[in-house]
């Protein structure tokens, strides 16, 4: 069974449709990359997966998104619990202006899901998983804003995984980073994919090609509504896409 499954998802901002008829099955413990030109709706779709769009006035979804088979837009859905299960990493690193430790401990503390004794262990484990532990272990009380951008982004990943999510959404997680930090995050993603389902939106097609198992290509139709044009194994999408629009976009000849 896919970890996440969208079926005929439509999405509207204040009555204006921005996504139409999106159906996609996202496999568990794999990396799925969503690519497409700016304004194609890929980030909107990503934010539907943990209902981040709910906070936008006038935003409305129609259709179904299932997480482990359960409709996340059902009335009975606990949205806080949903966002614990489906975490998110953003474009620019956004650590809280607090210590490294407090950033990672923040989620578990809010969720009260941890007993006091093991919080240290959880912080360490999360920082280790995020590949940051060795760089910060000697001074966990340092202000997180003194870290480099690449370290800050890994701290945000540590903060995300500290609440033990099942899915990690990443919206252009490397766009503010230099190539070395970008490759570190990509390596980290490959390692995290052993335990988490990852969905990443990226403008960098080489990144999608390098890091993902599956790729979905979004593009607007004649009515400027975002559609999922094609979805499949990354190696096929980047060597033999089926749809000429996919071919046009990934070879740089779209439009």
């Amino acid at each position, binding site marked *: 069974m896919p970890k996440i499954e969208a079926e005929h998802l439509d999405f509207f901002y204040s009555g204006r449709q921005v996504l139409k008829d999106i159906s996609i099955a996202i496999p568990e413990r794999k990396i799925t990359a969503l690519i497409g030109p700016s304004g194609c709706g890929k980030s909107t779709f990503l934010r539907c997966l943990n209902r981040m769009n709910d906070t936008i006035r006038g935003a409305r979804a129609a259709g179904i998104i299932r997480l482990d088979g359960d409709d996340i837009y059902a009335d009975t859905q606990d949205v806080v619990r949903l966002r614990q299960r489906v975490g998110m990493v953003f474009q620019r690193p956004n650590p809280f202006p607090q210590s490294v430790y407090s950033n990672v401990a923040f989620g578990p503390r809010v969720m009260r899901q941890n007993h006091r004794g093991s919080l240290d262990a959880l912080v360490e484990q999360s920082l280790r998983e995020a590949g940051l532990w060795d760089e910060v272990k000697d001074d966990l009380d340092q202000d997180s804003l003194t870290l480099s951008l690449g370290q800050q982004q890994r701290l945000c990943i540590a903060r995300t995984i500290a609440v033990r999510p099942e899915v990690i959404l990443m919206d252009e997680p490397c766009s503010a980073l230099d190539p070395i930090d970008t490759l570190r995050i990509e390596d980290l993603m490959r390692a995290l994919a052993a335990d988490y389902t990852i969905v990443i939106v990226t403008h960098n097609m080489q990144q999608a090609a390098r890091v993902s198992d599956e790729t979905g290509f979004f593009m607007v139709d004649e009515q400027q509504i975002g559609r999922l044009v094609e979805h499949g194994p990354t190696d096929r999408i980047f060597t*033999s896409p089926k749809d000429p629009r*996919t071919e046009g976009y990934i070879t740089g000849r*779209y439009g």
Partner: protein
Amino acid sequence: MTRPTLDTALQNLKQEVAALGELVLSNVIQSVRYLKERDFDGSKRLMKLDVIINRKRFAIENEIMVLIATQQPLAGDLRLLAAMLEIITELERIGDYAKGISKINLLIGEASLIKPLVDIPLMADKAVTMLRLALKAFEERDVELAREVPTQDHEVDELYNQVNRELMALIVADPSNTEQANHLLWAAHNLERAADRATNICERVIFCATGKMEEMDDHFGMRPAGGD
């Protein structure tokens, strides 16, 4: 939107592959002509020309590597470059066959031919026709033509079998013919393989155009059995 740098480079590469193809085909035709006419100087010249073929092949290969590194081609562009890498390798090997036939002419030396050369030039004509069509299919992304060309391979195979039978008969009739018969059989073998490589090129054309690998190797089944 277009990609002028990549598009121009791809176009130039296609032309360079076509030029390499012409050079190789010319060498195949000439090598058999010099063999038939017993023109040793011509054969020596051709053997030197093979160096140019090799150089051109490596130059094209290098340009393809640079394009992959600098332009990050994907999908159809990537398949085109991969196909060209294969095709230039096939062409370079066919060039080696022409060189081999030239060498055979020199090895036979002043001795008179044990049989008039009729079928071997015919094999060369057919192999070259197949190669020319395969290159045309590549140039024009003509999948139908690429599927059609390999069906001609059996004609070359039949000619090879005939040459093989005749040469075996000559050896049986007079064992002193063995050495030259062996040389001539190698020449025929080279042409038979050249035709097979036309089939390989056609497979690449189909892959390039459709993204699908289609094995068209009935030549494995048709491979001369050595005097059936």
